[in-house]
């Protein structure tokens, strides 16, 4: 049961990491668009 709990937690954290990475990519893209506007 410990192993399965670990697996579940790992899945959850990995999914959160994926979402965070997507958000970061989006944020960086938009940040660069803004930056280019000012240049």
């Amino acid at each position, binding site marked *: 049961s*410990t*192993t399965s709990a*670990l*697996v579940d*937690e*790992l899945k959850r*954290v*990995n999914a*959160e*990491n994926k*979402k*965070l*990475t997507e*958000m*970061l990519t*989006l*944020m*960086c*893209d*938009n*940040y660069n*668009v*803004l*930056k*280019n*506007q*000012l240049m």
Partner: protein
Amino acid sequence: SLDPNTNPFDLHFATKLPKREVSDSASAKFLVKDEKANTLQDELNRANSENKKLTEMLARVSESYCALHKYLEEFQSRKSPENESFQNEHLTRKRKQDLDEFVSSPIGLGCRTTESISSDKATVSIAYYPADKSDLSLTVKDGYQWRKYGQKITKDNPSPRAYFRCSFSPSCSVKKKVQRSAEDPSFLVATYEGTHNHAGSNAGGSRTVKLDLVQGGLGQVEGKKERGTVREVLMQQMASSLTSDPNFTAALAAAISGRLVEQSRT
């Protein structure tokens, strides 16, 4: 199967004991399970550490983005803004939507509130103004004073699109875009964002048909000040009876949004 006569002091006693295969394999399984749990724990620690780093990076980028966005807004309000195209040209609708969702998400450290986003969306409306084809000024008489701050050519329409701010800006944040209709060039299409926080000059000199996008239906028909002829009155009555017909309203909304064109193609 152990022989009861076996001497327990025999040096080879151990070899004569039945093999404990079951318990050996269980122990091996425990070991394997333990190793797997350790590996998983290591992996979890690594993922958690990555998660923490990503969250910190996101917070930093969000702060920078908000600072830059604020700066750009100030820059736009001070200088005449070719930068307005930022919202329309460089960010696609999808990405803007993603960004709005992000900044209002619990993780996102956004610079806008959900209320402001929804209130922005809640006050978008479109009005159609009859206009002479030779008139290239893109000005419409809607009862308010406006300051033009930009113009651009869009891919979907050969006529340029002009951008206006309410003359009471920045205390009134209403903006509008005006462009000749691609479907019917005898009309100018004005898209309004926001609601005026002051009264207009009521200088309406032309007939308009205004569509409230939030309600999805026909809003109001505004007439000329100097309407007075019987023909005009009859037309007004016809228009008001038509607009009270939900089928007509739906058909008109569909036609304007281009759905009828699509349907006729298919």
